[in-house]
């Protein structure tokens, strides 16, 4: 299973281009699912029977897509202009290596600091004046390998040092990983699992997936912003890597279901699972569209605290994966069994 997280984190799947991630997931779950299909947007919707029929219909959701870059133009000299897909702070781009689906690599260049004016030396370039350099000699040369609309991923660098994992796309392949793991266990109740597309560009996939599944309850498995790094005051750190599963009362898209929050707190206390509350109203995730689906869905996001989201290297603690997984599995049985 450890290799599985590496495999899906290092796979390419920028919003709107999740096909190769979906193929990997289908291969991992097809022998354990009772039904699965890919919908018109590209969501993978999976149904698995449990030992018992559920009292409440539950959907667990995670998104397959990751942030990245898309080629918008090629200059006469063969440099690629690009835009962001999903929210990226431009400060994490200069100097980074990116790769395309055909194996072509490039770097995001910067004017050598020796030749910069004092203003340029401290300025992060705007999107129009940052370029991917693939070594092409001209526009024609570049276009033999890369077409407009090509998606560039951060070069995958995955490391598990026994305590933490560093990788691109932990947001939200870690959620996908946990759902695959659940699908491969024997469940107490029937449940739906949705591997959603296009979360990073407006929660599009989860919207149609929730419509199709039409659940009573939903649990969203996500990665959320841990800011527990030097220079950030304790009160502003949002959540802490290593302190367990993260739940919140509210973020920028959702006010979460109080009954589900209480259930999560009770289970964490009963079972000794580490749980922390998100200490900021920040960010948002697929819960934003799921809880407003049809006539409303009772929804809770259970998240992994993750540093350096939306960049080449994010970081999570291995112990937090266990806490999120265990809490989600217990809470799902409570919900589906009608005990909440």
């Amino acid at each position, binding site marked *: 299973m450890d290799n599985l997280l590496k495999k899906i984190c290092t796979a390419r799947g920028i919003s709107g281009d999740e096909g190769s991630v979906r193929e990997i997931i289908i291969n991992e779950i097809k022998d354990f699912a009772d039904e699965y299909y890919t919908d018109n947007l590209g969501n993978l919707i999976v149904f698995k029977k449990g030992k018992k029929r559920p009292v409440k219909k539950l959907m667990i959701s995670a998104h397959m897509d990751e942030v990245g870059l898309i080629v918008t133009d090629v200059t006469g*000299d063969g*440099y690629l202009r690009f835009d962001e897909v999903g*929210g990226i*702070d*431009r*400060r*994490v781009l*200069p*100097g*980074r*290596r990116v790769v395309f689906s055909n194996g*072509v*690599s*490039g*770097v*995001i*260049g*910067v*004017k*050598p*600091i*020796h*030749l910069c004016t004092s203003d340029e*030396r*401290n*300025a*992060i*370039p*705007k999107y129009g*004046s940052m370029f991917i*350099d*693939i*070594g*092409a*000699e001209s526009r024609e040369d570049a276009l033999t*390998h890369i077409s407009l609309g090509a998606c560039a991923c951060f*070069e995958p*660098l995955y490391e598990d*040092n026994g*305590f*933490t*994992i*560093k990788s691109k796309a932990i947001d939200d392949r870690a959620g996908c990983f946990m759902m695959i793991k659940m699908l491969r266990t024997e469940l107490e109740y029937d449940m739906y699992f949705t591997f959603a597309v296009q979360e990073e560009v407006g929660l599009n996939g989860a919207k149609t997936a929730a419509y199709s599944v039409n659940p009573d309850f939903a649990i969203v498995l996500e990665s959320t*912003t841990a800011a527990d*790094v*030097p*220079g950030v005051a304790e009160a*502003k750190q*949002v959540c802490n890597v290593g302190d367990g599963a993260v739940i919140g009362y509210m973020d920028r898209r959702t006010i979460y279901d109080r009954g589900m929050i209480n259930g999560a707190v009770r289970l964490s206390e009963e079972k000794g699972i580490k749980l922390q509350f998100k200490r900021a109203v*920040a*960010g948002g995730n697929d819960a934003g569209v799921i809880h407003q689906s049809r006539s409303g869905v009772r929804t809770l996001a259970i998240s992994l605290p993750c*540093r*350096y*989201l*939306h*960049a*080449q*290297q994010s*970081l999570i*603690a291995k112990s937090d994966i266990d806490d999120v997984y265990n809490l989600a599995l217990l809470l799902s049985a409570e919900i589906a069994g009608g005990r909440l």
Partner: protein
Amino acid sequence: MDLSSIDNLKKILFDLCALSGVSGDEREVAECCADFLSQYAEGEVSIDDFNNVTAFFGDENADTTVLLDAHIDRIGFIVTGIDDKGFISVDKVGGVDLRTALDAPVIVHGKENLNGIICCMPPHLSDGNEDKAPEIDGIHIDLGLPCDKVKELVSVGDRISFYSKPAEFMNNRVSAAALDNRAGVCALLRTASIIGSRNNQHKAPLPFRVVILLSCQEETYATGAKIQSFKNEPDEAICVDVSFANQPGVDDQYSSIELGKGPMLCIAPNLNRNMYDAIVSVADNLEYEYQIEVTGGRTGTNADSIAVTKSGVKTAVISIPQRNMHTQAEIVDLYDIDETGKLIAAYLRRKCAGEVL
């Protein structure tokens, strides 16, 4: 290893770029280079107390000495502290470009090599300063290890290098951290493979003394070049480094320097014009490609120090065109490295025929 093959040249270059060697901590890369030079050098190959590598070629008793210099150190950081959560604070070693720092993969060269990340904030919690590069005080490194483990493996004074896996791009162009100046080192290894007669009885050693110096600490205070040029008292020196090629944003004289069009031969007030003319004439005769770099002041290379050693050294600078200097995204063209190595060997060969100067 036959360095006339571009594939072999790439392999040794990628091996060199993967090694540590932030200024003052060059032992690992020095040993690799010394091993490599031993297969060609007729004279002694050694590493001094400062991590300078010297390899002697030609007639060690000759009156004339030519020094060929390329620095082996790379820019990076030095550990200045470890906080109670295990985060590492740093200062710069050399001219690190902090615009490329946030979220950058780094290797902390502690008791073992440890992968780290330079801390940053996600866009969701942005401070609104997206247009501004961080200051050095804001640079912290996260190893993702418990604090006691960090303190066990890392000490104040350890070096940190940027990590980027050496990669091949289109058109023989390659990208890696530390191409400044492992590209120049690689060019001198190529020269060594041409001039060196050890293990090759069909080659005659050069009739003068040639010292290949792979120097330490260029990115900080040019210490390696200063002490070894003092020691070896060269009559002439050629300094091999990287210099600027055209790229977006570069609009001065470097906008006409291209990758893959041969090395850059430098004209500067402190460089010897006769040597420049001789190198140009060798290149012209052999139809080797070259480009001309003119600077009105210092060259910004070891040549500035070598030229004023003792009573003075006639010095030339040959540079490999490079993009994105002092970042993890440095790019050079393998062809330019090969041409640089060949041009220097051809210059020495012509010099031994007595035609030069």
